[in-house]
């Protein structure tokens, strides 16, 4: 058997376990019963076992499985328990023995079927006799083939103390590896930046947003399993959009409060002329909606608001369709852009129509602007 690990590997997992058990405040109790060298020895045995089957060490949740170590009397009992729970496979020699017992039982059952067939032979129809014989023959052939393979494996084991395999792959129940066992937080954040950069977002913005959401991403990192990493990264962009949306809505609401005289710091918007040069069209359906806006505007004007209103619908030649409508009355200075790609409402701070060159400029907060740009360019 070729060992794929060295002392550093043992030390690496030892540190993970040490850190985790210390965090749980059970490290002292554990080493009272199992001194560090005993723990290292258990790690070595587990690594050897995984090597027997060429199993990736990372699939084990090393920190968690050692949580209960202190409840065992000795390391053998601990390892047996891990085997029973399907966390680590049994040694190949045990596995081979189990297979032998299983084949022995199958042969015993076959013997019973042969005796029965003989006893009831004269009561059976010719056709049924043939069927039963064919079944028994096939079963014996199949068993013979399996036994031959196992014999070869045992011969191999005798030569090199290694069973190469006809053994079916063992069942491993816990294919859950905390991501933090595989990479550190910085590596994880770099992967997030790398993934988001694939969406045409400006790099400086990606860095800014990852830094802004560092706490949330750190929490995800703490909980994520290694096996879930790709799914997480693939969903990161949509998650980011929804997070940004939430945040931007809060900002816009803050601005509304400012307009009412509440002291809230107004964020500085960035102007994006992302529709520059695109002709603005006014579909006929708009005119029928105008009276409704007029009604809202009048109500607000009566309430002392200086109201400017208009309705614009833009159909672009990209796959983004934005529709603008006034906010409900109390938010009349803003527009909602329903962006079909984002699947959510986007706050636009203002817009400006230039009748001369028939262009429309939309004003968004920076983060939204970047997201819309990213979607437009995609």
């Amino acid at each position, binding site marked *: 058997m070729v060992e794929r690990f060295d002392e550093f590997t043992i030390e690496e997992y030892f540190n993970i376990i040490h850190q985790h058990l210390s965090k749980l405040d059970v490290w002292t109790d554990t080493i009272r019963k199992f001194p560090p060298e005993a723990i290292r020895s258990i790690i070595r045995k587990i690594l050897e076992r995984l090597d027997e089957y060429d199993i990736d060490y990372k699939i084990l949740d090393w920190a968690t499985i050692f949580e209960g170590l202190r409840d065992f009397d000795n390391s053998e009992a601990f390892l047996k328990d891990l085997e029973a729970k399907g966390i680590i496979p049994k040694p190949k020699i045990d596995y081979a023995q189990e297979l032998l017992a299983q084949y022995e039982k199958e*042969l015993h059952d076959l013997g019973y079927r042969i005796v029965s067939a003989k006893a009831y032979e004269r009561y059976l129809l010719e056709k049924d006799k043939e069927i039963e014989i064919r079944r028994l023959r096939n079963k014996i052939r199949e068993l*013979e083939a399996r036994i031959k393979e*196992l014999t070869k494996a*045992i011969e191999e*084991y005798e030569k090199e103390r290694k069973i190469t395999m006809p053994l079916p792959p063992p069942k491993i129940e816990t294919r859950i590896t905390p991501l933090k066992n595989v990479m550190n937080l910085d590596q994880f954040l770099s992967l997030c930046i790398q993934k988001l950069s694939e969406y045409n977002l400006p790099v400086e913005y990606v860095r800014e947003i990852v830094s802004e959401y560092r706490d949330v991403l750190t929490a995800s990192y703490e909980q994520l399993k290694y096996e879930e990493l790709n799914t997480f990264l693939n969903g990161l962009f949509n998650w980011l959009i929804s997070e940004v949306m939430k945040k931007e809505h809060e900002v816009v609401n803050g601005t509304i409060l400012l307009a009412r005289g509440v002291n809230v710091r107004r964020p500085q918007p960035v102007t994006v002329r992302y529709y520059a040069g695109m002709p603005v069209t006014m579909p006929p359906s708009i005119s029928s909606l105008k009276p409704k806006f007029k009604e809202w505007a009048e109500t607000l004007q009566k309430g002392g608001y200086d109201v400017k209103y208009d309705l614009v619908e833009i159909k672009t030649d990209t796959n983004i369709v934005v529709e603008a409508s006034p906010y409900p009355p109390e938010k009349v200075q803003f527009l909602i852009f329903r962006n079909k790609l984002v699947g959510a409402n986007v706050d636009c701070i203002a817009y400006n129509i230039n009748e001369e060159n028939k262009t429309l400029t939309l004003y968004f907060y920076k983060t939204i602007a970047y997201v819309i740009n990213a979607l437009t360019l995609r």
Partner: protein
Amino acid sequence: MSDELDKLEEKRKELERIIQELKKRLKRVRSG
């Protein structure tokens, strides 16, 4: 049919003997 069944029984017994032999060999490996 009986002949066929006898042959199968013979084959089955042979496989049983191989299993017993393998068990002994594994035991030797384990203790050795």
